[in-house]
């Protein structure tokens, strides 16, 4: 087996040129000529992206680079919600190609097809049999409208205005729910034999604006993919630490399967709070909603796997899920901070093979819930990876797929891929 070189670098420099120089020098030392770089930065660097990307792509001219904005990241260096990080890989038995799809919120199907086409074309002459995709797609952006602070709208008139406004803003300004699953449906349909790990780009969980990177390009409302073919092996899995409780029926839902209006035939917010056995005023208190909603997602099964959906927004008559609800049984779910941390250990141990390096997408909701206790997630990662490099990014939605299987798309979860010889 030829030399595999991997480096995960961090920079906390504020200036883009200095951050790029720090990342470059760390990468250059360990991986002089990377085949690819995954680059992520927090939204604090939005005025510095241009400098970071132009410097890195200038220094690594033959390297494919993709990435985007994240709420935070953890690696061997630490846990951060401000900074930039890069995963650089060089391996001779590997071919790489990138794909970009535009206008993911206006025409996600087309964006997915564009991506898949470029990956197929770029890797068509590769002789390596194991195929893998990293996908990063623009996550939800909530348009700024009056009365939308705190994630709760109690006024019926304002609810109507917001619902109508979001439909318009989705088309005109591409500010709305992310539609990542519509993009991934196309990508995975076109590239069924690829394994995959996905992260939806996000800002500091204000859901204002997020960015995607490809080479020196700074993109919005786009999908960026890095396809690799190699003789390296990979394993992917996910976990959340949640337990399903009471079953319920969604009896009215929007066309995009994200705005739930009725549960068990009754208005969704009041019926959901009844199922949770909590007063509606308590769980939908706008002052605390942003802090409390991570603790009461709902769950649904895809096969025997429990997928979580978080209600990021509650209106007078309906609730907005971060991603699509599936048909079938839906459950209230209980989850604790301790279970979130334990699930990291459980997910990693489910793939008990010694990796050369690892990459994970974890929901930003878990980061905002755990706060500085996210260090315990890092402790679990360090215990598993020991001296091998790993990078966890905090995103708006995470996904994972094994070759020739359907993909899983989650919220409030951890998706991991381990690469091994």
């Amino acid at each position, binding site marked *: 087996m030829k030399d595999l070189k991997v480096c995960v670098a961090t920079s906390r420099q504020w200036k883009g040129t200095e951050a790029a120089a720090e990342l470059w020098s760390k990468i250059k030392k360990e991986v002089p000529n990377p085949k690819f770089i995954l680059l992520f930065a927090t939204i604090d660097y939005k005025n510095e992206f241009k400098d970071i990307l132009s410097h890195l792509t200038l220094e690594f001219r033959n390297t494919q680079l993709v990435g985007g904005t994240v709420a935070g990241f953890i690696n061997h260096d630490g846990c*951060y919600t401000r900074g930039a990080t890069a995963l650089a890989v060089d391996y001779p038995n590997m071919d790489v190609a990138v794909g970009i799809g535009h206008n993911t919120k206006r025409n996600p199907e087309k964006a997915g097809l564009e991506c898949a086409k470029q990956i197929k074309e770029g890797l068509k002459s590769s002789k390596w049999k194991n195929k893998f995709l990293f996908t990063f797609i623009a996550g939800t952006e909530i348009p700024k409208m009056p009365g939308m602070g*705190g994630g709760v709208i109690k006024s019926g008139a304002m609810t109507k205005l917001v619902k109508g406004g979001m439909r318009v803003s989705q088309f005109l300004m591409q500010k709305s729910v992310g539609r990542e699953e519509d993009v991934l449906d196309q990508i995975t349909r076109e590239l069924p034999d690829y394994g995959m790990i996905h992260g939806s780009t996000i800002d500091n969980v204000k859901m204002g604006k997020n960015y995607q990177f490809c080479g020196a390009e700074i993109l919005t409302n786009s999908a960026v993919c890095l396809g690799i073919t190699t003789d390296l092996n990979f394993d992917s899995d996910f976990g959340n630490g949640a337990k399903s409780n009471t079953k319920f029926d969604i009896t009215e839902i929007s066309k995009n399967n994200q705005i739930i209006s009725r549960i068990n035939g009754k208005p969704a917010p009041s019926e959901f709070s009844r199922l949770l056995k909590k007063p509606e005023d308590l769980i939908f208190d706008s002052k605390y909603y*942003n802090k409390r909603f991570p603790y009461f997602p709902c769950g649904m099964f895809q096969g025997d796997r429990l997928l979580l959906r978080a209600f990021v927004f509650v209106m007078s008559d309906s609730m907005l899920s971060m991603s699509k609800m599936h048909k079938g049984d839906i459950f209230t779910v209980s989850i604790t901070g301790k279970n979130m941390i334990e699930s990291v250990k459980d997910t990693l141990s489910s793939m008990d093979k010694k990796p050369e390096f690892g990459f994970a997408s974890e929901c930003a909701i878990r980061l*905002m819930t755990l*706060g*500085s206790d996210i260090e315990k997630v890092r402790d679990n990662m360090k215990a598993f990876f020991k001296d091998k490099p790993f990078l966890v990014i905090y995103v708006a939605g995470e996904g994972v797929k094994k070759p020739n299987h359907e993909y899983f798309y989650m919220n409030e979860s951890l998706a991991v891929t381990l690469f091994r010889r």
Partner: protein
Amino acid sequence: MGRNEDIRVVLEDLLKMEDVQACLLTGRQTGTITPGSGTKLKNLVLWKLIMDSSHKFFPVIEDFYIYGLKRLYFELGDYEIIMTFLDQFTALLVVIPSLVNRGLVEVEIENSKRTIKEIIGRQK
């Protein structure tokens, strides 16, 4: 740079975060150290009150510290004050708007706390 200047740089970095409205280090041995650029709080009377009164918590903090006290949270109108303890005599105090995602800020508060502890440790 001296110890206080090094600490000021760490506080300045923390203050640059969008949600951090003000921060300071307060302690019996360090006194009160603030970022060079001051505060983003518009209510300067409130900021002065916070600076002048933060040390008054220490008699209570000392009693509870041996039982594992790590942090104190106060809701103050539209703001939340987070006090994180480096030891029973020193605290990092951060003011954030009450509706923001506290968890993300806490990660960087923890990083700042560790760096400040290193700086203080180097000087001993």
